[in-house]
């Protein structure tokens, strides 16, 4: 197990907000350190665009449960119910819900939803990690932080409900929701377990060809959905989250079989939670490498290799960054790590 201290991380990631950062933070209601990092990553013009993008709501996305019905049948049924759907160009199973008729039920309360015909995602970005992780793969998958099951159920669908998926989470009421979705969507290939992901290498002997780590992150990519995030996470809180992310990622890598591939995902644009975490792990392991995503779904951005005096290994540029102001989605970062032979 890797040993890291939140205090050391805090010292590492501290930034001094400039006057401009203070001003913008006040205007948009953020903690100043956050805006300072946006300026360092993006420059001033793009920081304005990012802050504006965080003010605009994103529309939910429905993913048809292809184990039960064809996506176009779902689309025509939802259309009859008064929902206005837009296709997602790079995912033929999903649609963005851009409007609803007067008197339509909410998208998460229709009969079709209860019958398990679809899953409601907050946005289209959460479709990316599973699609890429199991691209052309047939075999077992471990989802270490799985609840409430958006990605688990997506992976089950992509694998035709034929390969074992082990879905783990630490929080019981979230596991209950995960099981609810598995039942609702009539998925049989998922085993739901309850553990701290950091303990899995010790408690589970099996190793997996694919591992998904959808880390419990700060949510700094979803401010348009959760504006409270503008002020909720102080830098020391962020350091604690980063510590947990490093520990969970370390243990999850242990769960990979040789030549297996892991997706490390956060719904955060914070370099501290992404490239920094990866760099810390790379520093201490010689049995992994970052790999390119197997296909390009759309024109996403790359990981960033330097930030606020940090120089991360160049390979972090292989990570995917989805930016609200560039891609019109929630912010998300996805890195693929392959286990090499020692």
């Amino acid at each position: 197990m890797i040993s890291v201290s939140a205090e050391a991380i805090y010292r590492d990631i501290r930034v001094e907000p400039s006057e401009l950062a203070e001003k913008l933070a006040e205007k948009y209601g953020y903690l100043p350190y956050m805006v300072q990092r946006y300026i360092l990553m993006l420059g001033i013009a793009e920081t304005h665009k990012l802050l504006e993008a965080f003010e605009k709501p994103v529309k939910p996305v429905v993913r048809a449960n292809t184990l039960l019905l064809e996506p176009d049948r779902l689309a025509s049924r939802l259309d009859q119910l008064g929902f206005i759907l837009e296709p997602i160009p790079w995912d033929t199973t999903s649609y963005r819900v851009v409007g609803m008729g007067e008197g339509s039920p909410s998208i998460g309360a229709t009969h079709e939803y209860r019958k398990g015909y679809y899953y409601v995602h907050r946005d289209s970005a959460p479709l990316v990690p599973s699609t890429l992780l199991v691209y052309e793969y047939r075999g077992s998958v471990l989802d270490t932080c799985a609840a409430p099951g958006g990605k688990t159920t997506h992976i089950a669908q992509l694998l035709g409900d034929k390969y074992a998926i082990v879905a783990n989470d630490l929080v019981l009421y979230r596991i209950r929701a995960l099981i609810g979705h598995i039942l609702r969507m009539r998925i049989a290939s998922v085993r739901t377990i309850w553990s701290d992901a950091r303990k899995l290498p010790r408690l589970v002997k099996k190793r997996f060809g694919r591992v998904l780590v959808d880390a419990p992150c700060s949510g700094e990519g979803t401010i348009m959905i959760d504006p409270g995030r503008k002020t909720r996470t102080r830098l020391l809180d962020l350091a604690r989250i980063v510590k947990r992310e490093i520990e969970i990622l370390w243990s999850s890598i242990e769960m990979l079989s040789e030549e297996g591939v892991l997706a490390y995902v956060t719904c955060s644009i914070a370099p501290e939670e992404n490239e920094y975490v990866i760099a810390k792990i790379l520093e201490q392991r010689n049995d992994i490498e970052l790999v390119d995503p197997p296909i390009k779904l759309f024109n996403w951005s790359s990981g960033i290799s330097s930030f606020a005096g940090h120089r991360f290994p160049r390979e972090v540029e292989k990570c995917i960054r989805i930016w609200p102001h560039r891609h019109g989605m929630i912010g998300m970062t996805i890195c693929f790590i392959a286990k090499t032979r020692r």
Partner: protein
Amino acid sequence: MLHREDEEVGVVHQTRKIRVRAGVLAKNYIALISSYLREKLCVNPSRYIKYPLHYTCFNDICIVHEETGKYYSVTLLYSGQWIGVMRGSGVYLSPLLYERVYSDNGYRAAIVVAERGVKNFLYGKDILAESIVEKYPPLDNPVAVLDEYDYRVIGVAEPSRRMGNVFKNVYDLGIFLRELS
């Protein structure tokens, strides 16, 4: 803090908000499921379920499925096919199991319900005689409730002698919003 205690046939886990029980389904429940499959749906139970069966309860809602216990050394809370739902002293088949039986053998022990009845049923209400558009006997036992729109099973109801021609809601797919979200 977590609290954990071993029960007769299962394990209880409790957090502040939620209490989970999980374990092997008792023999009397298995007998109920088997005899329903054999006598009411006229199929061989072993074609549809593998024994032993397991249950997981979150507070008051209990789901029957294929495996609990341990996955290596970790608590396994749910695995495999959804077999049924436990309510009171009874155990009832899942929509999944009904639909598998129906696709092999045709409908039995089922009522087909029109749109308005479906809506009410999915909100936990009972089914009135006027909402029923088709009946597949036997009906003096728990029956699958089918949506007229697509003939999917949306829950289970039981005839109520006391209430005339009403079928009482045992469980419906609204549980996903009411009890499992």
